[in-house]
């Protein structure tokens, strides 16, 4: 099949750009560990309150791990437990969350903390909170009539 010279140039340029994008995100993911939240941890959605760590939602300092704090959240229509958390600036935090009923979102506005919570699954994300401030945590997956009143607050303090 004959292809115009310029079209060959364009395709080469276009495909190279796509490859560049893939190399950048692939390298950050598989070399630096910047994966999207993809935990494969399971929980019985009807017994969430009895099962660790969800029997004790909140901020927990941990030792001997790659992160300093574990923040445990339980979502249900239309609440997050806890309703507010505080972590020190510069600490590395592992967010661990699940839902007791329908699918909910878990997003801290203005950050990359953005994950879907599904019944039966635990969602996890590790990040270093390097900017002080108050970040609104909200549900970004439609969950019913109270969807837009479902909030919590992440406070990163000095």
């Amino acid at each position, binding site marked *: 099949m004959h292809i115009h010279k310029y079209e060959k140039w364009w395709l080469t340029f276009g495909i190279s750009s796509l490859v560049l994008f893939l190399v950048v995100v692939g390298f950050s993911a598989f070399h630096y560990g910047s994966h999207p939240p993809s935990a494969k941890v399971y929980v019985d959605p009807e017994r969430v309150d009895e099962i660790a760590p969800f029997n004790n939602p909140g901020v927990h300092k941990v030792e001997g791990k790659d992160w300093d704090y574990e923040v445990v959240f339980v979502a249900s229509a239309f609440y997050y437990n806890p309703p507010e958390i505080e972590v020190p600036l510069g600490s590395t935090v592992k967010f661990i969350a699940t839902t007791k009923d329908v699918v909910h979102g878990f997003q801290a506005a203005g950050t990359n903390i953005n994950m879907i919570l599904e019944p039966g699954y635990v969602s996890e994300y590790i990040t270093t909170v390097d900017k002080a401030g108050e970040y609104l945590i909200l549900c970004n997956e439609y969950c019913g009539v109270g969807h*837009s009143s479902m909030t919590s607050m992440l406070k990163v303090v000095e």
Partner: protein
Amino acid sequence: MTTVAERAKDLVKVDRRDGKLALAHIYVAFIALAIGGLCGLLQTLVRSGTFTLPWGIGYYQILTVHGVLLGLVLTTYFIFGFQIAAVSRTSGTLTDKQRMLGWVGFWVMTIGTIASATMVLLNQASVLYTFYAPLQAHWIFYAGLALVIVGSWIGGAGQIGKYIEWRKANPGQSSPLLTFMVVVNLSMWIVCSLGVAVEVLFQLLPWSLGWVDKVDVLLSRTLFWYFGHPLVYFWLLPAYMVWYVVIPKVIGGKIFSDALARLSFMLFLLFSIPVGFHHQLVEPGISSFWKFLQVVLTLMVVIPSLLTAFSMFATFEIRGRALGGKGVLGWFKKLPWGDARFLVPFIGMAAFIPAGAGGIINASHQMNQLVHNTIWVTGHFHLTVATTVVLTFFGAAYWLIPHLTGRVLTKQMNKLAIIQAIVWAFGMSIMSGAMHIVGLFGAPRRSDFSTYGGSAQAAEWIPYQIAQAVGGTILFIGIVLVLYIVANLLWFAPKGETEFPVGEISENAEKTPMALENWKIWLTICIALILFAYTVPVIDMIQNAPPGSKGFKLW
């Protein structure tokens, strides 16, 4: 120079009986536009914080109506109307049996649509058009959706039947380009809608009827998005048909390359389907490796759009130069800017540039965390489907409807159509622009007005939400205008002959390789890619499935 034979070809009319079938689809499409568009206006007003819905109507109820009517009904019905006319125009009048399949499909889809819509209006199914379990709608809502899908298969079979008949009657010849494209689009549709059919028939229906207690949530979402991404290409490909085949004729030029047009459609068939995980990038239960693999395949589907961009510019440049356009960009001025059949889809093409750029960002693996379920995504698909696709459909309606009704688009209506497209582009720039920006701030999609407990961040979003309402209001004016034009073309425009423009292939273009029409090869690769992308993660999902979920009705 047009020869007598070519002029005779231009006047080929779609058979009246096929035209009636096509028009039936188009009627439903524009009724959906009217109701769905009104719901869209109401949503933007509610979200600006200045308006409350009367009579206890829920925000999520009208959001469901808006999504279902515009995302599923308007698109599918217009596409079927257009495709039926296109097949009949380029491959000959449908046989009685093919047309009968078209009508059976139409009524099955319509009964399904009415059943689902009724449950939404009764507030028994405010689950949005993605109907994520374990939110549980009334079973009639799911049954209605199943009928829509099955109806589309029946109607599609009529169109594919004509293609098979043509190939048998013309062995060794390349099929008419437009018919070929229709068949690619339908093949993609049938392969992908199997996913949502399995979800609805085997998971959601038995569960909502109470025959089973629990549903596997992740599996249902995976089946949905196996369907959901090719769905957006099912909307886009008919727009590409207009761009590749109709626009060259409208501007008086030729199709740049038949072979490249077919190749890009085949690439869409291959790479549109095994990519659903890029809608599930931030959810648990799927490993980063398999997500990334589908991200790679997702970016492959950009390639046929790159090809298309080149072909479009080349078609325009060759024509503009033939008309005496000089210099590097002088040809641009020579294009028929006063012709709505050209200008309206052209604005749609222009919108696809930011739309495509945004789409690449959305699909870029972990970068999806930046935008996932923020209103940026809403801004994105209001550029893709609600501008690129919809303006192209409007531009096509301006010749298709009068062609089928035996009327003409008058000068005044042509002018109004141009104004309509400009109004649309203006309103959408404001609305979609505001959505993109505030989405990056973190404002969520699909959410009622909320101050989020007095959050300082959420307070910053409100000016953008007001901008969305301004844009939404302008867009609603655009909807009123297009409905006025369509009503004119259906019932009031002067009688006359309107051409169904079908471009000729450029004499410089190479002969099309027959391999492009070897369905055994392409469908085999298509299915192999799907199996490659989905088998391992789906088996993993089923083997490691946690206890399922019972249904919830939380609205």
